[in-house]
């Protein structure tokens, strides 16, 4: 039976990908951010998950406004990282686990979560930067798990509610736990925390709100579902809505988790950066 061993959260800012490419991890600006990752890598080295489900939001590489799925899952054998137009060096392809993807799809659609399936999906920095942070050298790290991308729409409103995001995770959990193979799965929730890139309010960061979210998501994720989507935009910034990915991740971990590691740092580029390792309770 598949076992969910824990959840990882991280910001997925493109500037982080650039800093990695240029080897800036030890510079004073970057160090307080990168210092959060070695303890999580140690945990991963110890537990060696077989599969990483990477819940992120596409930023206009895999999807465009012509067809915009609210929730989409990769069902491919591999995922390519492609040119995003401005940025960070492209990585090699990430190996998928198509059989598990289709099992999740079967389970979630039967559970009335009608998710869009993608046999081809170009993955952007939202997917690749977290992989590089947790598995340095990704995708060529020897411990690199097979990867399944799940993307939620935060590009255009209406975006999913926080309750729907948490419920998504719960449904994902049910699907995973019914997988007959003995595999260990780790769930990534990437993006956030507070930031706003657009408008006269660009540069908005709200550390009080971010810290509250990081505290509540451990033991009281249900309480966060009371936050409306407009309240989330107001308090976390337009792109702080990426916190939905954290809620999806959290739903998949089950009721009891232990916060093994956490870090919060401002600013990384325009963002309040949150990093957490939540281990599933037994």
């Amino acid at each position, binding site marked *: 039976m598949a076992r969910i061993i824990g959840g990882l959260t991280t910001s997925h800012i493109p500037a982080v990908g650039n800093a990695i490419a240029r080897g800036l991890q030890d510079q004073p600006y970057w160090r307080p951010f990168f210092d959060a990752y070695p303890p999580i890598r140690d945990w991963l080295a110890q537990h060696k998950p077989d599969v990483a489900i990477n819940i992120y939001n596409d930023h206009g590489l895999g999807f465009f406004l012509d067809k915009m799925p609210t929730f989409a899952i990769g069902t491919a054998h591999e995922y390519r990282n492609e040119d995003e137009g401005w940025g960070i060096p492209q990585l090699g392809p990430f190996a998928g686990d198509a059989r598990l993807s289709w099992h999740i799809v079967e389970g979630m659609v039967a559970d009335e979560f009608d998710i869009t399936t993608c046999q081809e999906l170009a993955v952007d920095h939202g997917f690749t930067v977290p992989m590089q942070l947790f598995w340095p050298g990704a995708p060529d790290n020897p411990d690199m798990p097979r990867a399944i991308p799940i993307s939620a729409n935060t590009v255009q409103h209406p975006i999913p509610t926080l309750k729907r995001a948490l419920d998504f995770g719960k449904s994902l959990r049910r699907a995973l736990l019914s997988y007959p193979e003995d595999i260990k799965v780790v769930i990534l929730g990437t993006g956030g925390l507070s930031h706003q890139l657009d408008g*006269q309010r660009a540069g908005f960061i709200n550390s009080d709100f971010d810290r509250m979210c990081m505290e509540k998501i451990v033991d009281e994720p249900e309480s966060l579902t009371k936050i409306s989507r407009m309240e989330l935009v107001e308090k976390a910034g337009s792109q702080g809505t990426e916190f939905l990915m954290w809620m999806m991740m959290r739903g998949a971990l089950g009721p009891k988790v232990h916060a093994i590691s956490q870090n919060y*740092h401002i600013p990384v580029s325009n963002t309040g950066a949150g990093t957490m390792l939540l281990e599933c309770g037994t």
Partner: protein
Amino acid sequence: MTKKTIPGTTIFDGEMAMKGYALNKMCYSFNSAAAREAYLADPEGYMRRFGLNDAQKQACRDRDVLAMIKAGGNIYYLAKFAGIYHLNMQDIGAQQTGLTVEAFKEKLKKAGE
């Protein structure tokens, strides 16, 4: 239903998605290096090919991010437009808030103190 307004913030909803479709579609094309080169070689022709309206064209000519947003631009696609000119999110943030890039970075740093 009345929409809630948040100062300095445009909610990119269905209305904006329809308004900005041509502009965003053009910016989405800039994922490809060939498209970026084609735009730089002939911006007017490229904008015409994607059917941008006058406000969208002028905003692109001026590289004016607030005007692009007003014309329906979505920041995720506009970032690809900015990339053509090697502008990053701090440059764009400074432009939209009327600050120098240094002052904008300082403002971000202060948020953590």
